[in-house]
């Protein structure tokens, strides 16, 4: 490639990285935690502090749903509890939007799927920065920019990749060390990033893309074709003859037996869907998670009246369309290979967050004036933004954990406190990074994050120690796992804090990160002392 073209791609890489980097940092840090969604849920509601309605049976939930809202029987879904400490809930389409309700909420159903679940809030931060509607589109655009940054990054580094790949030039030249770390992480986790850029864009921009493609290139036939390609519910018309329905347990058992005949080793049901419930032609679908298969979420469709199997979309009985569709979810969420893959996704997710953070540091380093004490204004702004947004979002997420923990102990609904703590701490950290000398702000925010994250975990372990000893169920291990991970993350943040403090004290004085060069003025014009 010509040098001029290479330079163009360098510019593209820099700009897409700068535009998308901050949002991607949040998506990756929250996404790494989201890998352990169910464990975080168990942490919030451990067996000894089960959520409301956790002990209500599925059939009771269905009875109350149909008694209170008889008109939903033509189409409704049941989200099965992820563990024994959570409640199943029903959802259906009302005239003015979707409704959700556990057994005791039937009279006043919710309009949001989960209002106080920390795990779902962290997921919302991951997929839309927690912003309604607009956030998802924003993250879709970010995913496209991310794809472009990835592609241009490969094009820039391809020529010297073979030569420099395993080089880690640890030495006095910090920029080169950051560059090597950035490249090594980028290349090692490349397949993982390709997966996220593609599936992220698809998940976030799915509706808009389908509408545009339908108009531009598919002659208005795409919607029907897509529905046919992904359908798992057989089309049936109600017979008008009432009939007895099988119990949910019987349906789940039958689905599991059927799924296991399709070459999978596990099938853990997480969702049921009913059509024309109570009619002779009623259909029940059971979706379940299978491990060690690419199509990790499979569905079995049955007659709800006699349990006849109407369709199986599991394991080796997938079509090419079905397996491609299902593998999008498996690959994005890392749900296909048990604990090992979850840990791999967690580490690669944190590595991804570091990739975007190091990208910003590289930008600052390469614009540094080596012979001047004062640094250009734009590097000050970038340094403050990087510290405020990146460290701030880590602090904010730990704050959401603390707020949830306290709210649960006070018997208050955790929904509002966790959001207030998260956004409050985030904005506070950004303001702090703008006002305080940036070298000090970095160190202090890192220490605050380290302290908050590990203190939360240690307090939870200490307070729950006796309950954990008494209970001893697999769920308890999940709670302990979350706490130990919190302590480990706290230690990592503390190590970063120490390194940043050392650089501020003894590193090159001609840098925005040096304490001596730290400007007293808030705008950071860079006049020293």
């Amino acid at each position: 490639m010509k040098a001029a073209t290479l330079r163009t791609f360098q510019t593209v890489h820099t700009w897409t990285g700068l535009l998308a980097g901050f949002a991607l940092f949040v998506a990756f840090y929250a996404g790494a935690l989201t890998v352990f969604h169910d464990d975080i849920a168990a942490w919030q509601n451990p067996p000894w502090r089960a959520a409301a309605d956790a002990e209500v049976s599925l059939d009771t939930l269905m009875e109350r749903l149909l008694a209170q809202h008889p008109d939903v029987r033509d189409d409704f879904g049941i989200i099965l509890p992820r563990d024994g400490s959570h409640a199943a809930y029903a959802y259906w389409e009302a005239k003015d939007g979707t409704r959700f309700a556990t057994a005791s909420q039937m009279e006043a159903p919710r309009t949001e799927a989960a209002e106080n679940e920390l795990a779902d809030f962290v997921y919302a931060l991951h997929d839309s920065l927690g912003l309604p509607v607009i956030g998802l589109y924003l993250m879709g655009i970010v995913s496209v920019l991310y794809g472009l940054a990835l592609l241009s990054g490969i094009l820039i580094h391809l020529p010297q990749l073979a030569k420099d790949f395993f080089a880690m030039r640890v030495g006095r030249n910090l920029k080169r060390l950051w560059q090597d770390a950035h490249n090594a992480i980028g290349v090692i986790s490349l397949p993982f990033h390709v997966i996220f850029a593609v599936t992220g864009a698809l998940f976030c921009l799915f509706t808009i893309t389908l509408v545009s493609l339908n108009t531009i290139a598919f002659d208005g036939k795409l919607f029907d074709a897509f529905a046919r390609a992904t359908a798992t519910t057989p089309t049936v018309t109600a017979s008008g003859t009432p009939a007895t329905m099988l119990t949910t347990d019987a349906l789940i058992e039958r689905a599991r037996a059927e799924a296991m005949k399709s070459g999978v080793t596990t099938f853990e049901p997480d969702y049921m869907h009913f059509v024309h419930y109570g009619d002779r032609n009623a259909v029940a679908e059971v979706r379940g998670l299978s491990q060690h298969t690419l199509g990790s979420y499979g569905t079995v469709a049955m007659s709800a009246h006699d349990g006849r199997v109407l369709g199986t979309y599991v394991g080796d009985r997938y079509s090419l369309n079905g397996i491609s569709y299902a593998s999008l979810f498996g690959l994005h969420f890392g749900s296909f290979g048990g604990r090992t893959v979850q840990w791999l996704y967690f580490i690669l997710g944190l590595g991804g967050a570091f990739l975007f953070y190091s990208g910003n540091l590289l930008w600052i380093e390469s614009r540094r004036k080596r012979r001047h004490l004062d640094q250009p204004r734009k590097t000050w702004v970038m340094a403050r933004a990087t510290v405020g947004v990146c460290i701030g979002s880590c602090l904010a997420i730990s704050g959401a954990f603390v707020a949830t923990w306290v709210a649960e102990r006070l018997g208050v609904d955790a929904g509002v406190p966790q959001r207030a703590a998260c956004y409050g701490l985030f904005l506070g950290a950004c303001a702090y990074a703008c006002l305080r000398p940036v070298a000090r702000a970095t160190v202090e925010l890192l220490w605050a994050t380290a302290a908050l994250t590990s203190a939360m975990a240690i307090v939870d372990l200490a307070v729950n120690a006796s309950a954990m000893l008494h209970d001893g169920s697999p769920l308890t291990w999940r709670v302990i796992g979350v706490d130990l991970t919190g302590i480990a993350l706290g230690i990592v943040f503390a190590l970063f804090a120490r390194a940043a403090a050392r650089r501020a004290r003894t590193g090159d004085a001609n840098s925005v990160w040096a304490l001596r060069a730290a400007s007293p003025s808030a705008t950071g014009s860079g006049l020293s002392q």
Partner: protein
Amino acid sequence: MIARCLAGTLLGFPLAALLLALLLHLLPGHGEAFLIPALILFFPLWTAFMAGAYMFRNGLRAWLVMGGANAVVFGALWLLRLPG
């Protein structure tokens, strides 16, 4: 730079869509069995066009070539659909 960026983004989008539609149309059964893999290819293809647009010498060439490619693929698709 901006002109090439816009060419890749604005013209790359329909070009990727039209190419996939053409590919599916040529496959047996109008590619119904390959619809989801084709949709998965959409974003990588669009991104490739966005990056590819920077290979042109200037913005004008990028717009002309990519615009022409759009017209050709659209024309081919239209002709193929005529009898059916």
